[in-house]
């Protein structure tokens, strides 16, 4: 199973990772705000992650680390 780690404070909430994920694992946290004032990304279905790294490839701020 894949493990996703986010550097949440660097997230700008652009949502490019959310669109890139083929398994719809990610979403922007509507109820959270990070230090920059954005809604950061969070994994809602981490157990369905296939570690394809599409999200990390699209992330402009390099906040995603993926381990398997």
């Amino acid at each position: 199973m894949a493990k996703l780690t986010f550097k949440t404070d660097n997230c700008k909430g652009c949502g490019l990772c959310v669109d890139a994920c083929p398994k719809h694992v990610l979403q922007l946290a509507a109820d959270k705000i990070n230090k920059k004032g954005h809604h950061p990304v969070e994994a809602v279905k981490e157990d369905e992650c296939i570690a394809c790294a599409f999200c990390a490839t699209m992330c402009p701020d390099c906040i995603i680390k993926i381990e398997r």
Partner: protein
Amino acid sequence: MVVFEKPHALTDVPMHYCPGCTHGIVHRLVAEVIDELGIEGKTVGIAPVGCSVMAYNYFNCDMIEAAHGRAPAVATGVKRAEPDNIVFTYQGDGDLASIGTAETVHSAARNENITVIFINNAIYGMTGGQMAPTSLPGQVTQTSPYGRDVKLCGYPVKVCEMLSQLDGPEYLERVAVNNVKNIKNAKKAIKKAFQNQIDGKGFSLVEVISSCPTNWGLTPQNALKWIDEKMIPYYPLGVYKDRSAAKEETK
């Protein structure tokens, strides 16, 4: 096992770019290539003026800030003084295709052994979204509110096509970073551009079609779609010059 993490050549400094700006993706691709080739200790980057003016904060290798448009001239000096170093410039369209056209054309004509990463987002980003030499015909910007009128402002500069007419440059390719497939291709092109320099082949330029959600007035997602629908038809992707490959074919 780590599948993906931040490359070592990229610092921990949070980037100042707008949400969804693809500058960050290209920074990461350059850093990944530096890591993979193991050249971080001898790489010198030249930062431009424009949105990526603070690129020196984000790379772990040595960085120099050049005057507006003069990055290829500074890179020429560094490379000639320290031929063992790997020198790359990272420039936007306002820097490379506008004020720095002379430096770009002449360093390409001289076939300087440097690597140029050229970000083309069809607008002046840092100054607030004015029309750039690369803005598309009919594109609405701050200084062309009714769309770029080609009768008044002329046509966009296609840098890869223009430089491919010269005998000098070794390698010219245009790539985009609007989806995962194009990003993988962009990385291959950037890696080849660095490898050419290590092999002493000469001037390599990779033009990256990039997005500017803020100044295009689009969401990050729609900006990537706009690249597909508007920019790529006008700026076709592909290899515009590869002298080594052409030599291989004629053998």
